């Protein structure tokens, strides 16, 4: 074995329970100097809970954490920082209205110091960003930065405090392939300087690329620890889910008639989010159109447009029948199924029952209301039908939807929009935050709908998902839409260049 002094962090039988649920169960793990350990597991396997314990956001019910041989006091982020643990959260912990420098400096000086040495802090940030390849302007307002830049600020925050251990929670989830490469380059520099890294992910190829060792979690338990050199992606995947789950594979489809056409559509920008810039797009029967791109590049505007929430400033929407004034209700009337990006915020009303949520879009239609009065019996029947057909695990149609897991909530939404037999399906990040089983289910339903003759627009930040499902791929960047690329005609790296905005100038 290596020198025990090389051990920088040791977790010893950490356990955390939330009520009756044991989120993590006696997890032990050792991290050495210069080590890159990947923590691999599905959503709900306990990865993020474990990280939050390490960093002091939660207090473990049992077990201990040692950093550089010293026990880490529980529930104390300050102590974790002082011990040299730096964390890059999945949801960035940055204040948008403050500058990069202010965000980095926050909490690093004594609160009651008079004035501060701005210049010294600045010089240090600039030196760190040079040394680690983290280009970002210290005086920029964080709110004006791209997601990739914000992540650099998060890493700089940790480095500024002399972190010796970096914990990264799903760091590539929001990056283009090129940005992810740049991140890996930064991490390699950090390793070369003797830092240790704990890398949380569910993306197997990244884990294989950067980690020395993988610790696989399932249902809160360590189910395996392997050196990446001695394993394969398939083996890790099987460990993660506890058996083989085949993701549905879409057979090539034969596209039919155009069901919806956007013709040179432009919409106004909405704050920092760009609107559409002269977008032309055809959605055909029996075809899945995949929309790739880094989030915040106009996908929201396109989704809002198709949902009926906004109207084009110029350009035209053509459907089979010419629509009346374009509105959400008109979109529903035209047979557009809308699976919204954020199922908590726009997809459901948390304190409404499953029945109420099931008829949110259609309560005004003849089946559910009579003479201006709700027909609750019909509504409940509809909800029960969805619960049975879509395998929604729940206490019953009268339960508040808040109690459901993300996957089951998504199944209810899926049932709500697919049951009426839509012509066009807008699926905006339909599998975000779901576990592999639920992902497979949702994707197979979308494929089935396509095979049934619906036009599907799949918006996703996950390039693998797009490349796996879509018959035609478009890329969005700053509100512009690339030409459609047929399945298999572009590699991930080529699509990544389009995502970064290259290629548009030649095309235009």
């Amino acid at each position, binding site marked *: 074995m290596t020198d025990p002094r090389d051990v920088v962090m040791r977790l010893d039988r950490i356990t955390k329970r939330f009520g009756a649920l044991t989120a993590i169960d006696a997890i032990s793990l050792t991290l050495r100097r210069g080590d890159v350990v990947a923590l691999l597991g599905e959503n709900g396997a306990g990865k993020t809970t474990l990280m939050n314990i390490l*960093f002091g*956001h939660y207090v473990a019910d049992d077990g201990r954490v040692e950093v550089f041989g010293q026990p880490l006091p529980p529930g104390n982020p300050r102590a974790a920082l002082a011990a040299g643990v730096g964390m890059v959260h999945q*949801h960035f912990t940055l204040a948008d*209205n*403050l500058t990069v420098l202010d*965000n980095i400096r926050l*909490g690093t000086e004594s609160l009651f110091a008079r004035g501060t040495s701005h210049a010294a802090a600045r010089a240090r940030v600039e030196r760190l960003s040079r040394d680690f390849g983290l280009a970002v302007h210290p005086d920029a307002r964080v709110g004006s930065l791209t997601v990739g830049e914000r992540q650099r600020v998060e890493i700089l925050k940790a480095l500024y405090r002399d972190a010796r251990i970096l914990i990264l929670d799903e760091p590539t989830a929001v990056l283009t392939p090129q940005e992810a490469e740049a991140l890996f380059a930064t991490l390699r520099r950090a390793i070369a300087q003797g830092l240790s890294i704990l890398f949380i992910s569910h993306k197997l190829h990244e884990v294989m690329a950067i980690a020395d060792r993988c610790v696989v979690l399932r249902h809160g338990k360590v189910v395996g620890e392997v050196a990446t050199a001695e394993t394969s992606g398939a083996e890790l995947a099987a460990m993660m889910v506890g058996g083989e789950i085949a993701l549905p594979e879409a057979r090539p489809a034969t596209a039919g008639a155009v069901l919806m056409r956007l013709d040179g559509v432009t919409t106004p920008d909405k704050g920092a989010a760009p609107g559409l810039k002269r977008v032309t797009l055809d959605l055909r029967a029996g075809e899945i159109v995949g929309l790739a791109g880094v989030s915040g590049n106009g996908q929201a505007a396109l989704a809002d447009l198709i949902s009926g929430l906004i109207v084009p400033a110029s350009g035209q929407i053509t459907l089979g029948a010419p629509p009346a004034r374009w509105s959400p209700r008109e979109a529903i009337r035209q047979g557009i199924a809308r699976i919204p990006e954020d199922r908590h915020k726009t997809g459901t009303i948390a304190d409404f029952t499953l029945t109420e949520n099931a008829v949110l879009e259609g309560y005004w239609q003849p089946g559910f209301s009579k003479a201006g009065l709700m027909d609750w019996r019909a509504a409940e029947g509809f909800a029960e039908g969805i619960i049975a057909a879509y395998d929604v695990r729940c206490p019953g149609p009268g339960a508040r939807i808040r109690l459901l897991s993300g996957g089951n909530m998504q199944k209810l939404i899926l049932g709500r929009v697919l049951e009426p037999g839509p012509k066009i399906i807008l699926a905006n990040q339909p599998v975000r935050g779901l576990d592999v089983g639920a992902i497979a289910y949702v994707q197979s339903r979308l494929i089935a709908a396509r095979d049934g003759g619906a036009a599907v627009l799949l918006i996703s930040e996950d390039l693998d998902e797009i490349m796996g499902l879509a018959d035609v791929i478009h890329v969005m960047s700053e509100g512009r839409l690339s030409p459609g690329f047929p399945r298999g005609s572009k590699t991930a790296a080529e699509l990544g260049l389009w995502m970064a905005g290259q290629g548009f100038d030649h095309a235009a």
Partner: protein
Amino acid sequence: MSDLFDILLSVSFWAAAIRIASPLIFATMGELICERAGVLNLGIEGIMVIGAFAGWMAVYLGAPLWLGVTAAMAAGMLFGLLHATLTVPFGLSQHVVGLGVTMLATSTSYFAYRLALPEVTSPPKIAPFAPMDLPILSDIPFLGPVLFQQTALTWAALICAGLVGFVLFRTPLGLAVRAAGENPAAVEAQGLSVTGLRMGAVIVGSGLMAVGGSFLTLSAFSSFFFEMVNGRGWICIALVVFGAWRPGKAVLGALLFAAFDALQIRLQQTPLGAHLPYQVFLMAPYLLSILALILMSRRAEVPAALMVPYRKGER
């Protein structure tokens, strides 16, 4: 028209504007600190009442004037502690708690006043802060009477605004307070206590509100009477918005409002006052404030986490 010019050129108008603005400046700074940390403090109206009462009562019982100001501050901080405890660690609705604190502080003041002075019919007087008389400065024509014959408490208000601006934007503490109002998770992730920062801000801010209230009894008038705060707290809430959460702009807003108020009193005595009911004049500062608020605050950057309770570990 010439009446208006006469008023605008008079020393007494400008001196009055600054005097009327003083309590507003204290209380607006107090509210601004709370809101910068992410807590809307609707207890402000009541805290100003308790400040006016506590300051006056202390001096009435024989304390020196500055001790009266300190007593007001302490009373305000006590109610600030109540507000902070309910809204920060318990995370209760800031609206409901704030209105509750206002009602509690107001009625506590009235109750204590009646308890202490059951028999009085006309409010007893104290000797308030006297206008300063500085050598040379006070004798400068125009500027002297406007600026240098104010009471010490008016100067304290202006210094307080400068200090609040300095602390918020030039010190690590101010950065931490502002960050707590923008994204508490960021504060937590940097190892600072969101609860501590927010509670501290609310308590200190409430202390300043109470000092603003005490200006009314210890400097502007010389006695305490019911309804004397008369909505000034609510005006300060609007002034914070008007000032876009910046101390300098908020002071300007307070001066502007006070100038409108000083103007309307004087306009009532012009020939115009004979034609219009006096209520129209009383209304004018509020109408103009609403107008200014609409014009000024459209692009203001609200602290992103204002009114969002923070619970550790919750996403």
